């Protein structure tokens, strides 16, 4: 007799079936035979109690025959305990923005992130694209071994079309966006293949972000796909396809636009004149103008902005044999200045032309539209621009609406020494004139950007000067968080280095 037999009998209930009587001649059976009890339920429970303890005593844990063989190979050393503690703090939400810098520093020092942080790092990097490259460099063989075991983390363990394709087809929005971005960066052709494999079945809203992702590593190989997307049913998709084609100077769209523009613009006495062409179906297909508007002037203005934004910037310098500054000056003088400058700004931003961006920033007064082109400035041109602002503006850095402050606050990439030096010099220059007036609210965000991106060699000086500044009551709040970031960065870099 065993517990299973007794439990089967108990399923029916004692009023329908009596429990089986113990049989057999072993020790436990003779023990069970001695159990008496009234009523019958009492006996059943006593039998079950004895048998369950008897069986529990003889139970051994289950066993797997296969040997453990899939542990990772020898790896580079993990980072020091204190560095790992700082990493733990970042993963818990403190100064998360410094994670990429920390991981890069780890990889530079030939170390890797400790095992217990890898799952959370991989999980973060799954949806945070900019964390992927630093993580892959700092996770070591152990990280790769772990990533191989979870399909959500395959991005960290080499890309093959089969593996990526499976993930691409089955994942949710955020993960898919990450997959596409990573594949596009790693292998642009594979990215295009991936898009092509599901393009027809994608929803209109998904098509928008998918086609936008092509801007990563855009090349002439993408032109045929983008040309077909010009016939898409969605206006947004058509517009994005046209914008991307305009970035390729040899594309058919760029050539069509250049042909159209040859007879459209004239530069006379430092002013640009516009002769509008008749609207053709081809122009509408290329994303020029808005066919639903009735107001003629509005339609023309919109057409002009679109054509200028889709024109290769070389067109202007080649046709009029003039510098970007001259062209921009002529555009400002035109009666269509707003549309022309709007189109040129968009073209500069898309085609990422640092020289044009600098010319625009220097020519135009500071406004939110022109600040869009800040992101395409190269570090050297940014230095030139900041030096120009520093020399020409006498605004107090701490007062409201200071261009210098806002421009610096928007520079979300590593700061050069020149930029950092100008920031600290201006602070020193103006702190004594601040009086009791609280500084502009953008000071805090700009100082946070500075604290996050200033060169490592600048941290001691920055800490010293901001600590002095924070002793003024009016600056205490603005300096608190930047100081925390700087302290954390210093500790983090020292721990990794030592």
């Amino acid at each position, binding site marked *: 007799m065993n517990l299973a037999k007794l439990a*089967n009998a108990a399923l029916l209930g004692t009023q329908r079936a009596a429990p089986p009587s113990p049989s057999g001649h072993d020790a436990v059976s003779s023990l069970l035979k001695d159990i008496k009890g009234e009523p019958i339920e009492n006996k059943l429970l006593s039998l*079950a109690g004895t048998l369950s303890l008897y069986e529990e005593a003889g139970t051994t844990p*289950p066993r797997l025959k296969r040997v453990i063989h899939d542990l990772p190979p020898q790896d580079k050393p993990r980072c020091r*305990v204190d560095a790992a503690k700082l990493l733990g703090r970042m993963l818990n939400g403190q100064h998360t923005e410094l994670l990429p810098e920390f991981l890069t520093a780890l990889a530079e020092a030939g170390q890797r992130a400790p095992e217990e942080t890898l799952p959370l790092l991989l999980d973060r990097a799954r949806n945070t694209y900019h964390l992927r490259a630093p993580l892959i460099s700092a996770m070591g063989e152990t990280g790769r071994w772990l990533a191989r075991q*979870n399909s959500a983390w395959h991005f960290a363990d080499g890309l093959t079309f089969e593996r990526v394709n499976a993930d691409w087809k089955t994942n949710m929005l955020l993960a898919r966006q990450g997959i596409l971005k990573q594949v596009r960066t790693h292998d642009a052709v594979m990215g295009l293949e991936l898009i092509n494999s599901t393009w027809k079945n994608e929803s209109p809203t998904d098509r928008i972000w998918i086609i936008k992702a092509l801007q990563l590593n855009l090349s002439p190989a993408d032109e045929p796909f983008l040309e077909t997307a010009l016939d898409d049913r969605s206006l947004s998709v058509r517009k994005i396809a046209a914008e991307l084609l305009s970035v390729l100077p040899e594309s058919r769209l760029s050539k069509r636009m250049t042909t159209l523009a040859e007879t459209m613009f004239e530069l006379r006495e430092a002013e640009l004149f516009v002769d509008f062409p008749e609207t053709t179906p081809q122009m509408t297909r290329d994303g020029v103008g808005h066919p639903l508007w009735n107001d003629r002037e509005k339609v023309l203005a919109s057409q002009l902005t679109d054509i200028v934004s889709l024109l290769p910037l070389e067109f202007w310098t080649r046709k009029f044999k003039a510098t970007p500054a001259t062209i921009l000056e002529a555009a400002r003088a035109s009666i269509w200045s707003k549309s022309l400058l709007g189109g040129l700004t968009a073209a500069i931003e898309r085609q990422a032309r640092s020289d044009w961006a600098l010319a625009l920033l220097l020519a135009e007064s500071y406004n939110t539209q022109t600040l869009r082109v800040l992101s395409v400035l190269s570090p050297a041109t940014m230095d030139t621009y900041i030096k120009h602002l520093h020399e020409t503006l006498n605004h107090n850095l701490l007062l409201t609406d200071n261009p210098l402050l806002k421009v610096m606050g928007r520079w979300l990439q590593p700061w050069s020494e020149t930029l950092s030096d100008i920031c600290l010099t201006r602070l020193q220059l103006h702190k004594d004139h601040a009086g009791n007036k609280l500084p502009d609210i953008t000071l805090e965000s700009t100082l946070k950007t500075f604290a996050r991106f200033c060169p490592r060699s600048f941290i001691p000086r920055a800490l010293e000067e901001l600590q002095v500044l924070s002793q003024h009551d009016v600056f205490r709040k603005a300096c608190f968080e930047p100081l925390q970031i700087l302290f954390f960065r210093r500790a983090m870099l020292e721990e990794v280095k030592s």
Partner: protein
Amino acid sequence: VLHFLLRTRRIPSRPLRQSFTKLRNDFTTNAPFPYTSEQVLGLAQHDYQVKTSRELAAAHRWQNLSFDDQGIWAEIPIKDKPAIQTNVCLTPLSLGCTCVSYHAPCQHALGLLLLWLEHPEVFTKKETPNWITWSEIDEVSEISEANDVQQHYKRIETGLGELEVWLFDLLRSGLEVARGRPSAYYQQMADRLVDAGLGEVAKDIRQLAILTAKHSRWHEDYLSALSKLHLLLQGFKRLNTLPELNKADVCSALGWPPDLEPRTMSDHWHVLGRRIESENNRKVQRLYLWGEASQRPAVLVTIMHGKKTLVTRFLPGVVLKASLSFHKSSTPLRAELISLEDISQPLAPIRAETSINVALEAFTNSRIKNPWLKTYPLALQNVIVEQHEGSWILRDKEGYFMRLPARYQQGWYLRALSANRLWVFGEYDGLRFLPISTWANDHLLELHTLKGIA
């Protein structure tokens, strides 16, 4: 029986209080705080609490940061409302706050304690304000008079009588019928047992409702659980004739902690984990210790009434040079702290068993002696966690394995640490092993503080 119960009523208060008075003198605001930030953050009940506590560990968030000989306190001003008042007593560690957070401890109390740990210089010494009464550890209420014991005994007897009738009814109609019953059927019986002062037995009744879940051998587990309840009833009826240690086990299973052994055990006790269970209006905290020389586990139980304050004697991750006295039992596990000499940080994890088969032998031996033992602490080293048939298992190099709880959220962390073979501590309930802490980055890592990954 009455005589026995009278003798076993809750006692250890006097030596314990004396030892705490001594502790108070040793570990106060005048001495360095014996815990690290990571150990303090182990008190957080969720990973997001860790984040908010960190944010609150900044002096500019607080007003009136103050301390006296026993603890620290401060306030967080709120516009047009009374300020949030937070206080932390340092020995025994007790964290209280007037905020509306459901959790004890809340992020304010944790943030304040972290601030004290990392920047004690921002606190000023002051007189204790009226709104603070430094709390004592709230022990199980004592039954002071013989009349109370008599009444209590009668209630237990009546409650167990009702349980016996309920069990027989259940068996008469059969387990298949019981399976179809709603959870209220079990809850009603559990409530009656709670009224009779049998909270521990009531937990087993609620557990029965879960055992009816679909799996092919549910009826065996169910019958086995019923038979253990029956065994307890029989034990109670024969309490006078049982050997003393079995008698103690029966009392303990009925929620009546037995007397302490006169012998104390001095050792370096590693604090390996903490588990809190909520029951009605009280919380039961089990603090798991492991003796370095004696190589045996011990559990310190603290009972907290009310929701707002968390009291704990120690935090996991430290080593106590202390003497414990175990409660009488055939499988002594629950203990009381008798004296404490020192709290220090461990340099390495305790030496643990490498074979799951051998470790489970300790569990099985204890279960045979004391069938009502529900969970048993196990420490294992040189093992790995891996996935098997869609769920996590812990296995040793011989291939023996234990399953981790279904949908266990911290499995990936243990898998990552398995790259270098794992040291892990947890509790085993006969079916599954619940990992509580592991050794990583040269310190004990409490697994519940890690964000779950599906």
